[in-house]
């Protein structure tokens, strides 16, 4: 294979994305199919590239800086996964973003939507393939722009959310930039495949900065707060594509790279517990918030945060079993969470709302959507034998090996996840049909097909977990690290499985009790919501008092006020002194140019005499 072929997955989507901008607003449909075609091509390329090894180095600038790409097993895998989601969600968008759908914003800028879609895909491909830290940073940062663009074309209120997402990601990327700078300085090279840094004070700091960038991209706490807002404001396929799939893939990919390749993360290093704690906190807090949501999309978005915790927890264990679990969870999560978002989109499009209080009984009207939802929800809750179950078991294994507290936290998270999905499913699909939804139909095929494919994959990856584990995940770690273990098949420890099942049964019982108490599915979690002590915390959280972004904004405002005061003073100085001095000088110079030839000539002659004296005297 010609190694220049590696440029194709980057160039094709980006060029196509720019071309998409040329479509006029009325040509939304052709634009949509154009985009689907491009993603299909991209998928074909990714499938072709998968499993191959290649690298490409193009000299790019005079400063010893190269544009280098590297394709190997891991990047090929992520490339393939991203391409798959890209294609399916693009297909889904053709129906969802159809101009006929009145309730969806964003279709006003359909060409922009698809342009950002393709650009995002191209940038992700670039970031995954990049073998040079600077090149990767370039693509990584470019994602910021498409992220901003994607959100801003949503609801009219989306501007605030877009700015929020931009600033949060920007801060995280800034950290990453610092981290990359330090890494390059320590390692003395920008080529990722040549960097293997041992543990040390400075490399730890660099690691933390890089980690912040990676987990922020994946959406872990405390860099999560834009996701729930975006879930409401941005076009829905964006949620399924970016925060649910691509950013998880990219963030966890990079996290795995830095903890396995660039740095050597060992269980003994204090970084490992740090990651695990972040993982646990993310799991618990996000799922607690998810539990009380009353909006289909918002609830899902909190889960998108919570599940990242499992991946970080898994990778943070620094044990093969945990890492395999974390990576397996990454791909599983991308699948079931996109499936869930897509089902949410189907509900939104057909029923016209995602407010759980206004939904109900859709089971009969949208049976296929319901089945897909059940599969995905079972996956995310870790019900055997769906894929989520297996990856979670691996993470549990790893966590338990480190400390039982991590395991307990993860298990509690699992309980709450199951509870919240029971609530969601109950409220949306079971129960009494809402009065004004009598005419709701099943979604169009273009939306159903992606959901069905993803749901089928969820089952496949669960039942036949040897397929992804042996062919996709385990080669990433390599034989040396695995020490001959294979994690395929039924989980090793029956005790843990039993505990999991017990927890799930507990969740169902809890739900039944709560639903009976509240009288409907929506209120099934109210007893937790209004539990003493939790109630006020929840209230404050809902008012975003704990949102790091809001806190940051407050601090920034205070600093700005102080700085403004200082600035006035300095400004005054500038205004009076420097500007006036400049203008005085200017006026003086103007006055000197009288237009008299005599003056000009005499300046020259004086200059001549001075220079002759200078040079002759400088002997």
């Amino acid at each position, binding site marked *: 294979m010609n190694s220049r072929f590696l440029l194709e997955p980057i160039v094709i989507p980006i060029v196509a994305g720019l071309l998409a901008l040329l479509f006029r607003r009325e040509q939304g449909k052709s634009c949509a199919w154009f985009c689907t075609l491009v993603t299909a091509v991209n998928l074909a390329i990714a499938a072709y590239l998968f499993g191959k090894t290649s690298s490409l180095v193009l000299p790019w600038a005079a400063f010893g800086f190269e544009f280098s790409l590297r394709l190997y097993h891991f990047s090929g895998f992520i490339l393939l996964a991203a391409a798959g989601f890209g294609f399916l969600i693009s297909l889904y968008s053709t129906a969802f973003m159809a101009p006929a759908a009145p309730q969806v914003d964003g279709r006003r800028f359909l060409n922009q939507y698809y342009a950002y879609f393709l650009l995002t895909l191209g940038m992700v491909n670039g970031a995954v393939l990049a073998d040079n830290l600077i090149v990767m940073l370039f693509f990584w940062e470019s994602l910021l722009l498409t992220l901003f663009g994607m959100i801003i074309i949503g609801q009219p209120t989306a501007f605030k959310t877009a700015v929020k997402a931009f600033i949060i990601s920007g801060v995280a990327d800034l950290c990453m930039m610092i981290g990359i700078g330090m890494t390059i300085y320590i390692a003395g090279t920008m080529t990722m495949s040549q960097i293997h840094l041992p543990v040390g004070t400075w490399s730890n700091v660099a690691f933390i900065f890089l980690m912040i960038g990676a987990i922020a991209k994946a959406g872990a706490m405390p860099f999560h707060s834009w996701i729930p807002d975006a879930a409401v404001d941005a076009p829905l396929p964006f949620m399924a594509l970016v925060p649910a799939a691509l950013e998880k893939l990219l963030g966890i990919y990079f996290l795995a790279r830095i903890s396995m390749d660039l740095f050597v993360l060992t269980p003994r290093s204090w970084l490992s517990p740090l990651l695990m704690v972040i993982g646990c906190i993310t799991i618990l807090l996000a799922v607690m918030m998810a539990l009380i949501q009353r909006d289909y999309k918002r609830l899902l978005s909190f889960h998108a945060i919570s599940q990242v915790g499992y991946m970080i927890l898994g990778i943070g264990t620094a044990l093969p079993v945990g890492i395999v679990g974390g990576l397996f969870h990454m791909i599983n999560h991308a699948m079931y969470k996109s499936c869930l978002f897509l089902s949410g989109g189907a509900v939104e499009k057909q029923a016209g709302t995602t407010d759980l209080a206004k939904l109900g009984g859709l089971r009969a009207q949208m049976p296929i959507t319901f089945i897909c939802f059940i599969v995905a929800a079972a996956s995310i809750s870790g019900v055997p034998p769906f894929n989520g179950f297996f990856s979670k078991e691996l993470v549990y294994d790893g966590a338990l090996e480190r400390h039982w507290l991590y395991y307990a936290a993860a298990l509690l998270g699992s309980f709450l996840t199951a509870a919240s999905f029971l609530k969601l499913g109950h409220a949306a699909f079971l129960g009494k049909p809402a009065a004004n939804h009598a005419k709701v139909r099943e979604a169009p095929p273009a939306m159903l097909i992606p959901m069905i494919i993803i749901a089928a994959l969820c089952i496949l990856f669960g039942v036949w977990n040897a397929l992804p584990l042996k062919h996709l995940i385990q080669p990433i770690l390599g034989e040396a690290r695995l020490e001959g273990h294979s994690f395929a098949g039924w989980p090793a420890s029956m005790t843990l499985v039993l505990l999991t099942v017990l927890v799930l049964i507990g969740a169902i019982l809890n739900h039944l009790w709560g639903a009976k108490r509240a009288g409907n599915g929506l209120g099934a979690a109210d007893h937790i919501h209004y539990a003493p002590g939790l109630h006020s915390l929840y209230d404050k959280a809902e008012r975003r008092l704990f949102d790091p972004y809001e806190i940051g904004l407050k601090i920034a405002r205070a600093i700005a006020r102080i700085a403004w005061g200082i600035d006035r003073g300095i400004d005054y100085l500038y205004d009076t002194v420097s500007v006036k001095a400049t203008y005085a000088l200017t006026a003086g110079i103007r006055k000197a140019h009288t237009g008299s030839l005599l003056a000009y000539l005499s*300046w*020259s002659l004086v200059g001549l005499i001075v220079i002759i004296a200078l040079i002759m005297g400088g002997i």
Partner: protein
Amino acid sequence: MPVLLIIVPLLALLALNLPWMRLMNRLALWVGLILCLTQACLVIYAPAFFLEAPSLWLGRLFLFEPSVDYLSLVMFLAIAIVGAAALMVCRYSIHTAAEPGTCANNRFLVINLVILALTGMNGVVLANDLFSLYVFLEITAVASYILIAAEKGRDAFEGAFKYLIMSAVATALILAAIALLMLTAGDLSYVNIKLAIMASPHSGVVLAAVAMLVVGLFIKGGLIPFHGWLPDAYSAAPAAISVLLAGIVTKTTGVYTLIRIVISIIGLSDTLENLLLFIGAASMLVGALAALGQSDFKRMLAYSSISQVGYMVLGLGTGTVLGIAGSIFHLFNHAIFKSLLFVNAAAVEQQTGTRDMNRMGGLAEKMPVTGCTSAIAFLSTAGIPPLAGFWSKLIIIIALWQTGHIVYASLAVLASLLTLAYFLSMQRRVFFGKLATGFESLKEANAWILIPACALALITIGIGIGIPWLFETFLLPIRSLL
């Protein structure tokens, strides 16, 4: 083969002045454009054409082996580009005489003279002998005097006269220096003079010659305090000629020659280095400050030109490879963006009938292409990344920093801020804001001016992005000259 750069235009000129006036009148512009574009294409695609030895019959005919190196190539390219732009502006702004058939058709003569000036500059770049250098300097200068006065306005004569007198004094200085150097070397080729100077570097005759030569070139390049003629000549010249003058004439006759002479003949002593740095910094600052106070569009650009020449001399003054490469690079960039600004000035002057910036306003609304390209040019001049000007200024500043001239480096940054200030003020007064009264029926200029404007803007952007290529291909080879 490079000698063809002089011979072919000469033959073309002679052919143009054959008796078929009507035909030739129409052909002249195209001949000029073809000459320029051929030259540019040759530099880009076939630099070997210039570097190879002359073929046998040409060599026998001219007994002349010009020394062409990468420095010359950059200059040939700049000359060709600016020349083409100026010719197109000629077509736009210089009107044919009332009786189009006669030989005294103004535009025809102007185009002939522009070709002559370009030929002269090619000769300046080619020369490897001081006296030939002088001859071609004079050809360029004489063509410029006539061109400035070509429209026969009152100001045009005034500008031309001042330029003529100052330039003639400069020429006398250069000639005296040549005579003194001949006294030492007995010959005038760069190589022999260099050897002679190396043999007796501290002889009074040589030092006096160096001083006079340098001052002569300062006058030609319009450096502070030898710049008196420059704003007058630039602002009084016809629009197309300002493009040529500001873009390339003074840069070739002044700055390029200075660089060439410093690196091929006299070398840099400490005194000369300090002198160049001081004069460069002074030009940079005074030019920028003076530009800040102008209300005449072209006069402001003229002062800005002085300021930019200051940067080039500053780069030369560092004496390092990086500095000189930056200096050449800035010369090239300046040729592009300053001609672009003058092209825009031509468009504005022609369309509005005034050059007074205080009477303009909001022209971008009516002349969007002009407004946009001028914004690109001024951003490049002010050194905003990633446009071309940023890189060359950056290289110069880095070179200053490396040689320990931190004060000069910070002055360069300061001057860059001033540049931004006066250009912003220009852009605001001319193109932005509310449309000034009286310009309601203003139209965009025609293609003869928009094509060069867009092309130059694209080059500026392209250089900014393609800097690595340019740096490797043209600028780093300069290392071999030192």
